[in-house]
């Protein structure tokens, strides 16, 4: 920025208040400071050309005639297109066959999965504080709170923070867990560990969808890792199938869904049209919308329980309702049930199929974590000493903090119930993570501190001895490490 430009800005200021001329040198210095801080940024010409090319390809794609009512993502070409169309037609139009997510289990020898923990040198341990914090970011909609389970600031601190731009991360208190439940006798000396079969052959997954529309055996030698396709119509969806992970996700195809900024000419309009609490339908209505979508798309959820709303984002003590950002999409979870028991991720959230519902449109905007529930099982040593388990729980369980600096607040935990937890183990041979499901004790949080707020709902302790040993004496980390 040249002196001339600075002078122009100063002259503009003086036009408003001529008395400021006496502070000319100081004003010039401050304006210069702001101007000098301007990053001298320029766009990467290579990026600019590539984006132009991609846009032109997209334009070309948009012009093509659509025969089936479905259009491939522009990233997919050739033979893959045949499969995609078949899958697309199958999912959206095959009324006679249901997409089954039925639980099956194959028993293997004892300790068939090898060690339950991943060796540290792989850097894949799922139990570091960072991983736990990261895992909180999963899910649809809602305002999940980062931080990995600590207690947030007092209401006063939050209120100050809410009114001050730039203040986002409140200080944390650290929980001190106190067990108030009954003594438990643990008699099982072995526990059954499950491993999900996540690397499925593409043709296998298609067959399990019961399509039977075409003989796909001709593609047997081809390896398909992921497939995406787009339903290009009003309120259409994109569908992604990951054969490596054995998962399917469905998302709103946003170009064909109404966007707020289409109807709003200014920010005031956008602000006025933000979703309010009063816009959120009742739980019954949300469930009805989700169930209708599931039924219309022939998805069978035999292995899943009744849906529950993921509503942690509503719990923000010290912040008024008007200040809470209400997400456009509310998430329901259909929890996976194994022998009638729930499965918990390490952050305390139930594992299951998530359905996002767009509040503005009252439609399902996404469905995630659909996966075939095929498992192998194997027996492992169980921990039977409840006092040892309790000690582990009082340190925060599997998603504990590894530091203990700062102020603490008491959190009471009650009598546990036996359910399941998820552990991810890195498979060196296949270079991918495998999901293990391990019996675990789930301690409910029964009393939280009056000061601040505490959002985890439970403490999770694995019953497999090996996992306890691995996690009960971790090397303490310094905060920020």
């Amino acid at each position, binding site marked *: 920025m040249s002196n001339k430009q600075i002078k122009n800005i100063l002259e503009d200021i003086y036009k408003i208040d001529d008395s*400021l001329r006496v502070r000319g040198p100081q004003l010039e210095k401050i304006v210069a400071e702001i101007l000098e801080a301007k*990053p001298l940024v320029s766009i990467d010409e290579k990026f*600019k050309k590539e984006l132009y090319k991609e846009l032109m390809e997209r334009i070309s794609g*948009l012009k093509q005639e659509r025969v089936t009512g479905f259009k491939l993502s522009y990233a997919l070409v050739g033979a893959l297109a045949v499969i995609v169309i078949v899958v697309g037609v199958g999912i959206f139009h095959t009324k006679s066959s249901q997409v089954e997510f039925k639980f099956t289990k194959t028993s293997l020898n004892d300790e068939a999965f090898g060690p339950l923990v991943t060796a540290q040198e792989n850097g894949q341990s799922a139990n570091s504080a960072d991983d736990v914090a990261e895992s909180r970011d999963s899910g649809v909609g809602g305002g999940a709170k980062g931080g990995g389970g600590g207690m947030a600031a007092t209401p006063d601190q939050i209120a100050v923070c809410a009114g001050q731009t730039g203040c986002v991360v409140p200080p944390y208190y650290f929980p001190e867990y106190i067990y108030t439940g009954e003594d438990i006798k643990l008699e099982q000396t072995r526990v059954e560990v499950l491993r999900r079969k996540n690397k499925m052959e593409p043709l296998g997954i298609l067959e399990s969808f019961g399509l039977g529309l075409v003989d796909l055996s001709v593609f047997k030698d081809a390896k398909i890792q992921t497939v995406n396709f787009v339903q290009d119509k009003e309120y259409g969806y994109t569908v992604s199938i990951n054969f490596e992970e054995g998962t399917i996700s469905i998302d709103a195809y946003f170009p064909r869904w109404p*966007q707020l900024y289409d109807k709003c000419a200014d*920010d005031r309009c956008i602000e006025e049209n933000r979703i309010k609490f009063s816009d959120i339908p009742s739980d019954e209505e949300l469930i009805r919308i989700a169930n209708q979508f599931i039924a219309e798309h022939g998805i069978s959820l035999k292995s899943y329980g009744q849906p529950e709303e993921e509503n942690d984002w509503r719990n923000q003590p010290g912040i008024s309702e008007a200040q809470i950002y209400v997400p456009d999409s509310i998430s329901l979870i259909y929890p996976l049930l194994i022998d009638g028991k729930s499965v918990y991720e390490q952050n305390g959230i139930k594992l299951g199929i998530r359905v996002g519902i767009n509040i503005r449109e009252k439609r399902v905007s996404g469905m995630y974590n659909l996966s075939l529930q095929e498992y192998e099982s194997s027996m492992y040593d169980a921990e039977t000493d409840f006092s040892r388990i309790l000690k582990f729980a009082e340190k925060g369980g599997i998603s504990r903090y590894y530091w203990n600096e700062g102020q603490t607040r008491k959190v009471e935990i009650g009598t546990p119930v036996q359910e399941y937890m998820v552990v991810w183990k890195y498979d060196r041979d296949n270079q991918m993570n495998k999901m293990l499901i391990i019996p675990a004790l789930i301690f409910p949080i029964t009393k939280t501190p009056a000061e601040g707020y505490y959002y985890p709902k439970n403490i999770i302790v694995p019953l497999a001895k090996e996992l306890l040993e691995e996690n009960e004496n971790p090397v303490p980390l310094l905060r920020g490490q």
Partner: protein
Amino acid sequence: MDNKEQKLIENCKKGDLEKFGGLYEIYIDKIYKFIYYKTHHKETAEDLTSQTFFKALEKVKDFDLAKGQFSSWLYRIAKNCVMDYYRTKKETIDISDVWDLAGREDIKRDSEFKEQLEKVEKYLEQFTSEQREIIVMRVWQDMTHKEIAEIIGKSEDSCKMIFSRAINKLRKEEIFALIVLIQLIKII
């Protein structure tokens, strides 16, 4: 908006989408900088710039010239892309740009501008995103008063009102800087 730009938009609306390339040439640099000043990170800015133009391409047929300027419509898409990006971080408080996340170590920022940006962070982080947007567009993007008013969809008077709300937020020791910034806004 000049006649050339208006013709490009009209042709796009009629289905001649190749003309979108002309609009891309006019706005790519401006939109990229607009996003960069909100993210301070090259890769993020490139990603969000791509999203902005793809969204605009999909929606240009529905753009209504009677409702406002194409530039303000495009900048709003860019602004929403940035907000959506930060919303995916699942913050409990709305985040409009990277200034709202001052001090956060987990947010990617280009190191080359870190020091110089920190110098003005003390001023800018205290404003609302809208106030910051006005200052950055006026001072860094060298936009005219008219352009800014069109993009943010407000009159000059309402800009003054917006800025007056920031007065109470500033600390005494920064009052002098405040005077400068007030005047910068007033002239818009």
